[in-house]
């Protein structure tokens, strides 16, 4: 029966080849079971086609347009600023700093004649503290352990944020 129904639905929907169509037409005309089923499905098809569409609220269109307007007004400053402006400011600073650097390096006296004698000013009893005795193996391991924990914590925070923004979309 399912097979007959499937064939007849294909026939009703117009999904058959011309050959199949003529075979089914003949079957409907000659076979009582086919004819009855065809009439039943045709009536159902007519009924299904009469499904009524639901009507949203009167303010639906207005609400959509308002939501779009609000969304556009709420564009964050970061997104609203033209990227070219940021690039322009960056270029200005880079060029200015490079210019200053070139000017300074160009105007320097590289002969060293005007340099003050710095070694003379260092006191004779000046001692650099010995920090190498404080840097032990357990301290380095502890520092590394802390770094690894911190990295894992930051990675976890990043994944959580990513997940939340994914759910929000």
């Amino acid at each position, binding site marked *: 029966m399912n097979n007959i129904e499937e064939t007849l639905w294909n026939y009703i929907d117009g999904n058959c080849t011309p050959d199949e169509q003529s075979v089914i037409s003949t079957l409907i005309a000659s076979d009582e079971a086919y004819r009855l089923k065809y009439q039943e499905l045709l009536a159902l098809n007519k009924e299904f086609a009469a*499904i009524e569409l639901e009507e*949203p609220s009167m303010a639906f269109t207005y609400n*959509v347009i308002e939501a779009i307007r609000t969304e556009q007004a709420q564009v964050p400053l970061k997104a609203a600023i033209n990227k070219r402006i940021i690039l322009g400011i960056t270029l200005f600073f880079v060029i200015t700093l490079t210019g200053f650097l070139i000017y300074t390096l160009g105007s320097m006296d590289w002969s060293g004649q005007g340099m003050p004698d710095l070694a003379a000013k260092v006191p004779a009893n000046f001692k650099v503290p010995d920090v190498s005795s404080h840097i032990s193996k357990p301290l380095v391991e502890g520092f590394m352990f802390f770094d690894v924990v911190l990295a894992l914590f930051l990675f976890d925070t990043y994944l959580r944020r990513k997940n939340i923004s994914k759910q929000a979309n």
Partner: protein
Amino acid sequence: MQSKLSDIELIDQVLAGNQAAYADLVKRHQRFVFTLAMRFAKGREDAEEIAQDCFIKAYRSLGSFQRQSKFSTWLYSIVYTTAMTFLRKKRVDTDSIDDENTFIQVENQSSAYDVNNVENKSRSFYLNQAIEQLLPDDATIITLFYKGEQSLEEIGQALGMEANTVKVKLFRARQRLKEKLERNLKHEAKELI
């Protein structure tokens, strides 16, 4: 008064900055999009939220619409994905039976049943009732096929399936709808006797 312009002409106007043209597009498709949303949400408020969300998403990505398919097909694919996401979220935050909203919904259904005289119920009422009892996928395919003016290929595009899969699903959906319709009508006939 809705615009006589085609969907593509309206889209061109929207992309040129005319927001009023988008209002025309929304008016043109809102009933169908809302009906599709109702197939998933079962409540008018949720369905309006889904439908509204779809139109906003469509507006945002209008520039990326390739125009290789009908605008309606593209829009329905947005409806389907948005509604599926809604269903997934709904499953996660499953409502408690004590929830006030659940209570109100049940109450409204029973009162609606009392108020509506069986004699006044038209055949289309039973049909809509039977559609509501279908699974969202079945109800969507039936609605897209009969009301969305979409071919099997276009329905496949909107739902991300092969046309042949849609054909099989449509056949099964029709069978289930027929069964539900017959069962509902039998139940009403028994109540009358």
